[in-house]
Structures are given as C-alpha cells and as structure tokens.
C-alpha cells in the first residue's frame, strides 16, 4: 500500500496546527532547567511565565503566539518508501484546508514582498524543501512555521578561507545584533560551508534538532558548547530584560565547499515551533513530536 495524497494532506494540516499549540517537550524541559540555574529573579519569573503560557495553550487547545508565521515544511523521503502522491499539490491543499477551518482562526501573515499585500496565499506558499534518505521506507514531514519576531534576525556572510576564530566571532556578533528581539531564550542554528543556499539550509535544519542532543562531530560539539556559554554571557536574558539564559542551544552543521565559506545563522524563539510525523505505507501517520 502506498503513501497517498490524502495522508500527505492530513499531515500538512495537522503538523501546522500542532506547531501553533504545543511547545516541544525537550524545549519545555530546557526552559525548566534554565529556570533552576538562573541567578536573576526577573529572568526566573519570565521563564516561569513562558512555561505557564505553554501549559495554558495546550490545556485550552489554543495558540501560544498570535503570529502564526508562514508555513514551512521539510519533507524527508525514504528511498524505499512506497509513494503514490503529488507532494507539492497535497501539501498546498492541506495548508489551504487548514486556513479555512482552523479554530481559532489564524491571522493573514503571508505577504507579497513586492506589494506588501497580506493574505493566506501567494507565490511559493507553503515553503517546502525535499530531501531523500537512503534505506528508509517512510516519509518524514516536519513543520516549523516561521514568524516575524525571530525570522528577521537570520544572517549569512561569505568568508574566504576563514579561521575558526573569524567564524565564531561572526556567530557571536549575529547574536549581539539580534539582542532581545527574537523572543529569547532561543535556539540558534548555524551552517558553515557548502554554497550560499546549502549553508542557509544547514543552519535552518539545525534549529530543528532536538535540544540536548550532542553533535556527533567532536569539533562541532565543542564549538556548540563554548558558543552557548559565550552567548549566554551577553546577559540579554529571557525576553531581553536581563539574565543568564539567552540561548537554549547552539546547533551547528558544516559541509565541505570551495575556499569561499558561507556562515549562516538563524533562530527559533523560545516556543521553538517544530512538529514531526512519519507516514508509512500501511496508512499510518505517526506523530513524532
């Protein structure tokens, strides 16, 4: 039995809706851990308020934030997955059905960049990227709707044969520029190398990595640890009113490239919107988070 349009439509709709209502478990745990370690009373109170907001949204089945963002999906297609579906059309249909039926309704955030006209629909919407993965017999769909608050602080710069020092200085400076405005504590995704577009994609995917997972590359694991420490020393704190917790994690990936080395940095706000489901050939849609 193949994976069908109906399954993809359903997953596209559910994943977005879940992302607006539930803060991932690893993120709630990280906020709670941060609260225990915070030395500033105001910061502890903000973290507590964030956890309460997450809990209330879940209990009442409503949204944590009013900015539902734009829909962004990542589709990982197993090379052994049985397919009988048109992904782009099915995802678009799932999103369009969501817009019409979601309760509470969502605001019109989809913007035409040339006219600034706002609505739910537009060119290239929803934004979807596809990857293939060898050996898997399922499709994994991830949704990470992107809102204005944290979306606008992402940055990318091209270096030529940079030292690690230059790379890390740039990452810290991007965090400094974002300051308090991306709803900290945030998850920071970093991509190093490849090409312009590949690097941005690496950074974005690192924001989707669960908190607390240790990088399998020892050099990157050490880098993540020291950059997390460095960013938290800035003292920006939860919602920017001071404190030890500005970042919940710095996640880094790299790709080999030429001598021109892009470095990309992006952020997920404390809500860390990220939902994931697997679609199997027997018709099952398994919610992963």
């Amino acid at each position, binding site marked *: 039995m193949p994976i069908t349009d109906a399954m993809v439509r359903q997953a596209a709709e559910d994943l977005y809706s879940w992302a607006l209502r539930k803060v991932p478990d690893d993120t709630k745990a990280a906020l709670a851990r941060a609260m225990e370690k915070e030395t500033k009373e105001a910061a502890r109170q903000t973290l507590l308020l964030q956890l309460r907001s997450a809990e209330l949204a879940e209990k009442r089945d*409503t949204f944590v934030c009013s900015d539902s963002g734009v829909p962004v999906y990542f589709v990982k297609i197993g090379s052994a997955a049985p397919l009988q579906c048109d992904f782009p059309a099915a995802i678009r249909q799932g999103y369009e059905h969501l817009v019409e039926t979601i309760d509470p309704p969502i605001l019109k955030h989809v913007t035409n960049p040339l006219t600034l006209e706002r609505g739910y629909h537009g060119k290239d919407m929803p934004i979807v990227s596809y990857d293939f993965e060898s050996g898997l017999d399922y499709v994994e769909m991830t949704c990470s709707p992107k809102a204005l608050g944290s979306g606008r602080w992402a940055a990318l710069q091209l270096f030529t044969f940079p030292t690690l020092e230059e790379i890390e200085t740039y990452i810290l400076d991007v965090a400094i520029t974002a300051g308090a405005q991306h709803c900290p504590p945030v998850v920071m995704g970093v991509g190093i190398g490849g090409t312009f577009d590949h690097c941005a994609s690496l950074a974005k995917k690192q924001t989707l990595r669960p908190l607390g997972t240790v990088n399998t590359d020892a050099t990157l694991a050490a880098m993540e640890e020291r950059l997390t420490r460095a960013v938290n020393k800035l003292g920006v704190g939860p919602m920017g009113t001071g404190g030890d917790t500005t970042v919940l994690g710095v996640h880094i990936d790299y790709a080999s490239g030429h001598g021109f080395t892009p470095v990309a940095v992006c952020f997920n706000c404390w809500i860390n919107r990220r939902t994931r489901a697997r679609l199997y050939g027997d018709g099952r849609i398994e919610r992963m988070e």
Partner: protein
Amino acid sequence: MSGMVEHDLKLPLSDADVRALKVGDIVYVSGEIHSTAGIPTHKRMLECLARGEALPFDLKGGALFHLGSYNIEDADGGLKILYINPTTSTRFNDLMPQLIPALGLRLTGGKGGLDARSAQAMKDAGCVYLSFLGGGAPILTDAIKRVTGIGWRDMISHYRLVRIEVERLGPLTVAIDAHGNSVYDDTIKAIQDKRASILAELRADRERA
C-alpha cells in the same frame, strides 16, 4: 514575585504615577488600553496629527501597546478579540519619539524594546515602556474584558487601532522608565564592554579543546 516591586495601574495615569515606576518593576494594567500591530497605523496617526485631524480615540494619559490581535466582528458591528500577543516594538523606533509626546502617552509597550530616542521622549514626556511576554497569548488574552472601540475599520484586523478594556493585564516588566533608564540600552552598553573578554574566553576555550 518575591523581591520585586509590583504595581497595579489604573488608566488614565498622571505624570507622577509613571515617574514612580522603575526599571525592573512588575506592572498590571487595568482600564482602557489601545493596541495595534501596524506600521501603517502608526504612520496614519502621525499624518492625522500633522493635519490637525482627530484620532479615533483620545489617548492622553493612556496606553498604546504594540499588540497583534485576532478579532471577529459581531452581527451588531461589535468586536470580539480571540487572542492578543505583543509584536516587536523596534519596528516603530522612527515613529514613537514623535507619537509619545503628541498623543500624551503614559504607557507604551510590546516586545524587544525601543531605542534611545524613544527613551529620551519617554523621559521628557513622562511615559514608560512595558515588556510583554512574546508568546504569552493565553495569559494576556485572559485580561480582556471587552472591546470598547475600533478605529480605522478599513485596515486589516491586526492593523486597526483597537480600544480594549482590560483587567490586570500582566505581569508586564518596566523595561524603560521615565527617568532615562532602559534595560535595552544598558544591555547593549554591557555587551559592548564585555564583547572583547567573551571573545578572549572563546579563544581560550578553543585552544584547550
């Protein structure tokens, strides 16, 4: 909230009311507030003031917050708000220094803060900036009692200027007070001072690894 000064504010407020507030204090707001998430709305307010036209509401002694909201119109033309949440205030950096004195605002707020020009305007005019929890929709929406006015219905829902009666909206943090203190400016200054030593620690950590 032990060790923190809390204030219950009832709008409208006097100069003395807001001068009593200090950076870091916790505030709950009751009364009628005004909200919008729109840059076009802010520009329209300034255009009206420049032309000497009346705004939909008199904001003197009151509050203008940078809040996004989803509202639905009732059959009788009334409005019901389903949820509210702060939007990034720095988007209004160029507009707030003029709007704060011109409107006679005592409170403004949202998330992410305002820059030094607004902090100066607040010091001169007697106004404070309140930091809202971004992603605090369930908590903040609970404070809404009813919508008491809608300005500029021709705009999309979250751009309209909406007058809302709230009860104990909060907790909100005083992030810029009326004495020229701003947690945002302080943080930026502290970061500039610390940047070199943080980079030196990064280098030392790297060399140890």
